[in-house]
């Protein structure tokens, strides 16, 4: 299981990287953590002619919290993101999600940007990105653009990224203080990709009613999806058990999971409902009524 031969570049700065990415856009590949790409190469399921290693570009790594957003550089290691104080405090949903990714050694290498760019429909980070309405910052030699999470993934392992574009950072909006959150999933074993993953964010208004709800799911279709019907059903309601249950019950109809050897489509559909209800329950317990955040 040795990869096919390739040429290797380790650009030192972003312009150099962008120019390489553009030059080799037809059959080259960017390598970040390599935790998804290299297994594919070892199985010879991916045979890039060249690898452009972006790990040496300092400007692509790091975490910046400002103006109500936390921006995470593409090559920031998942482990560093998950343990970073700004993330733990401002984006506990993200920190919780990262704890479900693989194992420590995977998180030590795997990057936040790599996971988002790889777009595995069962991966945790794209689900959180969707729940938090993240913005993906993308550059090419002649320009840059920002793509909302909801528009980023197109299908199984495919995104709107063009072959000559590089994802440089992902920026997450910090939820209002007092928001309740919960990331949860069912996997066959600890550290496996999720059969179904759920990210939930809930805010309560001063009356204790749901001010806003964000529910994103992974593993239930070719791309992560928002449970729009459930969100709409919740907003404006008191988050009682029957309300949460009713919201969760709508999820099954929204998702389009597929069969694989680990879970049938209908089982995934069922899990989606169960996980959403449970995650909502946890998020409710973690949420504070507006104005009482510090109580």
């Amino acid at each position, binding site marked *: *299981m040795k990869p096919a*031969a390739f040429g290797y570049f380790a650009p030192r700065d972003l312009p150099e990287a962008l120019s390489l990415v553009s030059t080799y856009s037809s059959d080259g590949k960017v390598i970040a953590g390599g935790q998804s790409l290299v297994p594919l190469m070892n*199985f010879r399921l991916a045979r890039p002619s060249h690898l452009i290693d972006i790990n040496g570009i300092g400007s692509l790594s790091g975490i910046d919290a400002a103006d109500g957003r936390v921006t995470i550089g593409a090559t920031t290691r998942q482990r560093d993101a998950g343990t970073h104080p700004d993330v733990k405090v401002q984006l506990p949903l993200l920190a919780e999600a990262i704890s479900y990714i693989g194992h420590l050694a995977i998180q030590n290498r795997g990057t936040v940007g790599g996971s988002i760019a790889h777009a595995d429909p069962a991966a945790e980070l794209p689900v959180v990105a969707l729940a938090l309405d993240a913005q993906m910052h993308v550059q090419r030699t002649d320009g840059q653009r920002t793509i909302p999470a909801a528009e980023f993934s197109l299908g199984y392992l495919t995104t709107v990224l063009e072959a000559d574009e590089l994802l440089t950072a992902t920026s997450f909006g910090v939820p209002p203080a007092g928001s309740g959150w919960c990331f949860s999933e069912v996997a066959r*074993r600890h550290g496996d990709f999720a059969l179904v993953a759920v990210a939930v964010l809930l805010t309560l208004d001063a009356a204790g009613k749901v001010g806003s709800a964000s529910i994103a799911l992974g593993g239930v279709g070719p791309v992560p999806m928002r449970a729009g019907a459930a969100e709409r059903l919740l907003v404006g309601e008191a988050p009682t058990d029957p309300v949460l249950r009713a919201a969760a019950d709508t999820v099954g109809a929204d998702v389009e999971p597929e069969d694989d050897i680990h879970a*049938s489509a209908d089982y995934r559909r*069922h899990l989606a409902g169960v996980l959403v209800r449970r995650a909502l329950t946890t998020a409710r317990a973690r949420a504070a009524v507006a104005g009482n955040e510090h109580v």
Partner: protein
Amino acid sequence: MSATSHATTLGTNWVGQPLPRKEDGPLLTGRDRFLDDIGLLGMAHVAILRSPYAHARILRVDASAAAALPSVLAVLTGEEVVRVSRPQRGRIPLPVSPQVYALAHDKVVYVGQPVAAVAAIDRATAEDALDLIEVEYEPLPAVVTPEGAMAPDAPILFEEVGSNILWHDTFPYGDVDGAFERADRVVRERVTIHRYLSTPLETFGSIAQFDASTQTMTIWGSAHQPGQEINNVAAALGLSPGQVRMIVPPMGGGFGNKTRPIYHILIALLARKLAGRPVKWVEDRRESLLALCHAADGIMEMEAAIQDDGTILGLKFRNIENEGAGIDFAGRHNLLMLSNIVNCYRVPAVSYEGYSVVTNCCPVIANRGIGKPFMCLAVERMVDAVARETGLDRVEVRQRNFIQPDQFPYDTPSGQTYDSGDYPEMLRKALALLDYDQLLVDQEAARAAGRLVGIGIACGVEPAGSNLSYGMLISGPSQLLSGQGEAARVRMEPDGSATVYTGGIESGQGHSTALSQIVADELGLRPDQIRIVATFDSHSHPYTQTSGNYSNKFNGHDTAAAIGAAGKVREKLLARAARMLEVAAEDLELAAGRITVRGAPDRSLPIAQVAARAYWSLNDEAPDDEPGLEALHYYRNPRTRAPDAQRRLPVQMGFSAAAHVALVEIDPETFEIEVRRYGVVHDCGREINPMIVEGQVHGATVHGIAAALLEEFVYDDDGQLLTTSFMDYLKPSSADVPMIETDHLETLSPWTPLGTKGIGEGGAIVAPAAIASAVEDALKPLGITVSGLPITPTRLWRLASQGGKRYPI
């Protein structure tokens, strides 16, 4: 040589002590040398082209482009292999045997079957060259289930056999009809098991080098049974076994899986082609999961004739075993299940009908416990079914049917003699280990709160040692291979330390430590003075065709061979000391590094002084004495024999046993299954090294738990394997299994020198049954019974959501 007297006659009792292992040092420091750590000058590296089809005719193979690459040293295709080698034979000669070669030539019969091989300057280059080999296939319909393969219109794998049923037979023992006539009722069960594998962390491999001048092939290879491998290679290449030198470096686990002769033959053929250049192939994980081997899947139909009090009068079995596309192990799972089929129970009448069926799946080989995990699962499911049908408690049904302690040695209907055991006490202890009474109370409370909590109970025998005559049940009494034994050579060195060579193979079980303890007791030395040459080398190590590490045979056979050889050395040593001290040898004692005249502590000699003379002072020799202190012992189990007229024979030579109690909880919505506690009480007779014994129990039990809940080879209808990576073939991690709690019981075997019995396999035999039982118990509020493995959340949920009552659907 009686068991108990033996160890007590000697001064120091190293046997029985939990010594840390002497193997550990190099393994801990990364200085050990596994197969893939061996590099030789000029070594060529092999990659194997494998069939993408489960069943296809090969129309054309063109390897010329690959062969033309300067970095490619040799290419081998099926056509050439057929020309230059002889076909392989199954272990048990079949009435009509398919012709199997190291590479497919006219047809492929499973995905992953080797079709061509390339030797190149390195592995990556060899893999590159595979892309250049063109193979034209004509796909044929494939069949992956044994029942499908038995259908009249099924595609036939081996035309020369004319059917996919390689073997079928029925074995009635005792008055089966009478038992069913007398029965108050008959209970029926159908139990299935899937394909899984222990997957040693180190994969299989082979290195071969051919010396053309002497026509000698040296193979460094993964092997459990070196005698068999040497003969396989010799026969295929037309060499004498004496021209094949086999070296087995330390193995990173084996579990029976590293037994695929075609690979050693293939690498040897390449080595012969390269005449001198060493050739290496180490299987990668994908190749391993795809095509090394799987444990057989099977379908067992059973009927039990019972009395209303739960007493089992008779059992009928009909087992269909899926051999995959292999002939190596044809019939063996069946015969090994047959020979243990009453498990721990006193069942006077049994009939067993077995089918060995080929399908377009990966060939079947031995896997930890071979056949017995399914035996135990089937019988234990049946015992629980008896409890269900009679309304009796499942513990009570077991206690009622157990072979009782005063019945040992106990003859089973098929001709096994169980040596020792106390099954009632074993189960009592296991229940006490997890505080069963309290568990029942807690379970009731949990159930009242809507939780699905289950307690699993299973008992099983763990046989040790196989009388290889069992193949005669298929091939008749003319079969060459019979009995079981092992060989050992012990040499006391001139400094008084000792070196031991055996035909056994080490793959992690701590044999070196255990043998050191045994030989130390025998020679009055300390274990650290005993050197075990663990890397088997047929040029230095004695062996027979039955040698190796399989069938749990270490405890009774390897030990006996070593004790035999050490005993001979001791006699030589004492005879020499007797002359030096001018006393009779019978008056000498051997302990703590000295030879002392009994009752005269001042008259003694250090062992080393006597040993030195044996090598240095040859003038000392009595005229008919040999110099040196070395002895060879070929041990053969005296209790093996051929089948009798009723086709009874002792297949297994000793019987450990264990009782497992498992506590599981199932999420009532997601049907995720958590094993919360797990207890094992085992009886393997005398424990040579209790720490090693515990380790075997832990590891085997986790194998069994994972087989029941996680591990599964899945084929689609076209015979494509869908689980070819560790992302999809799910091994358990430390976060997926609980601590294994253990206790033990010791009933000594009267037939092994030290009273030992086997311990390597039991956990893997009983755990699948215990998990099935626990899950069924947890699902009791839903009325679901469990008749097959593996148990997965997605399937359980589907069954429950459809209101089904029997798992699998």
